[in-house]
């Protein structure tokens, strides 16, 4: 893997650039001399014992301080309960759940397209059935066996006074674990100079959850800039951002799920 090669290259370089023992000895001696020259204060000040702040005293003050801080936090929380968005309370159309059939279809699509583009394929986006590919042939070989992800980003909105939420943008991103995705989210805007951007980076964590760093730059349907980092339970959508204007409300949801990498669909005996 190129990652291992990079590690080896960097470590070898660092080892070769490291000075020898003789130089380190000279450096250490110089530091000691400089410290003495600056009359470095001994760690133990030459004061009467009563004037010193003992470690035990410091710990007592630290504990009291922490307890006070905790009390303040608890009091504030009682007046301002944490706002926890629970997706089950949202309108159904606003929740971008990823169905098992969509997971299977996404896995198959990514597998088939990657067979065409090989290790040049970095990501795919599907925005309102308009597909864009992220292909970069200049990069070193990518690990095509890396886990794959489906990341869904949905922007919903409604005008003030309306009860129905409307889906304003829905984009599915198919990519590898720990792959940098930079795509133009508006399917009607093929201009690569468009400032609109959807930048994502997903990372499957050791506990099975998925961390996603997102940077959303939109000019339509609303001008917004969102930079968020969240940890998702696979398959469970969550609201990552909301904004209210004078006329309307908007919410951004995300969901992420790993994709199967099996080449063949297991046969089910009937």
């Amino acid at each position, binding site marked *: 893997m*190129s*990652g291992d*090669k*990079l*590690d080896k*290259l*960097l*470590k070898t*370089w*660092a080892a*070769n*650039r*490291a*000075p*020898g*023992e*003789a*130089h*380190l*000895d000279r*450096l*250490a*001696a*110089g*530091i*000691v001399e*400089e*410290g*003495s020259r*600056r009359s*470095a*204060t*001994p*760690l*133990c*000040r030459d004061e009467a*014992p009563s004037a*010193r702040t*003992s*470690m035990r005293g*410091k710990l007592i003050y*630290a504990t009291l301080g922490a307890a006070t801080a905790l009390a303040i936090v608890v009091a504030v929380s009682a007046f301002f309960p944490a706002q926890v968005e629970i997706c089950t309370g949202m309108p159904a159309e606003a929740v971008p759940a990823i169905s098992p059939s969509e997971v299977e279809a996404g896995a198959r699509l990514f597998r088939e397209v990657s067979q065409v583009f090989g290790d040049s394929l970095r990501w795919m986006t599907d925005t309102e059935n308009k597909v864009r590919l992220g292909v970069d042939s*200049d*990069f*070193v070989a990518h690990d095509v066996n890396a886990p794959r992800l489906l990341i869904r980003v949905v922007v919903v909105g409604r005008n003030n006074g309306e009860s129905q939420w409307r889906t304003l943008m829905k984009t599915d991103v198919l990519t590898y674990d*720990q792959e*940098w995705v930079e795509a133009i989210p508006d399917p009607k805007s093929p201009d690569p100079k468009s400032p609109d951007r959807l930048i994502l*980076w997903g*990372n499957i*964590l050791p506990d099975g959850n998925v*961390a*996603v*760093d997102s940077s959303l730059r939109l000019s339509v349907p609303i001008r917004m800039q969102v930079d968020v*980092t*969240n*940890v998702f339970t696979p398959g469970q959508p969550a609201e990552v951002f909301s904004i209210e204007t004078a006329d309307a409300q908007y919410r951004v949801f995300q969901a992420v799920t790993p994709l199967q990498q099996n080449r063949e669909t297991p046969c089910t005996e009937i």
Partner: protein
Amino acid sequence: MSDSPQCEDYLIAALAGSVEVPVDDALVRRHVGDIRAMIYPMVLNDADADDLTQEVLLRVVRGIDRFRGEAQFSTWLYRITLNTVRNFLSRQNRRQVASDEALDDRADRRADLPEELAMAGELDGAIASALQSLSPTLRAAIVLTTLQGLGVREAARIEECSTATMYWRVHKARKLLERDLARHLK
């Protein structure tokens, strides 16, 4: 970096006032190599690395009474080192490439053949240039994880950022380095 019980107990005893610890050779010598190894990839200049190593160690010794003990000593040491380097880089605000100066004892380890020397020099320069092109934040992420061998969680603790953010920094830095060093990675 060393977290040996002997070193920590010695310093903690100093905090308690029961031991007087001057800036002595043994204390400095214990950490000078590790600290310099961490600083050099950040500043990519031998003279600056030496100066900053001195600055860090003097700061550590002078500031040991502010070590609150709630983190590992090594974490505290890493933070001081990175903060000192960042202050230096922001003061400098100029691009440096690794100098070609050869330290006396390092030259002894170089390859004998001229061709290998030339290739090694070109590769050294390419790596230094690639590291230089990273922002200090991304460079620190690579130094902590790839070169210092720390886990992402510990690196995140040192840099006081989320684990996810540190994963992103490492990922981004590695991608940029792979791009810049593609020829040497084949």
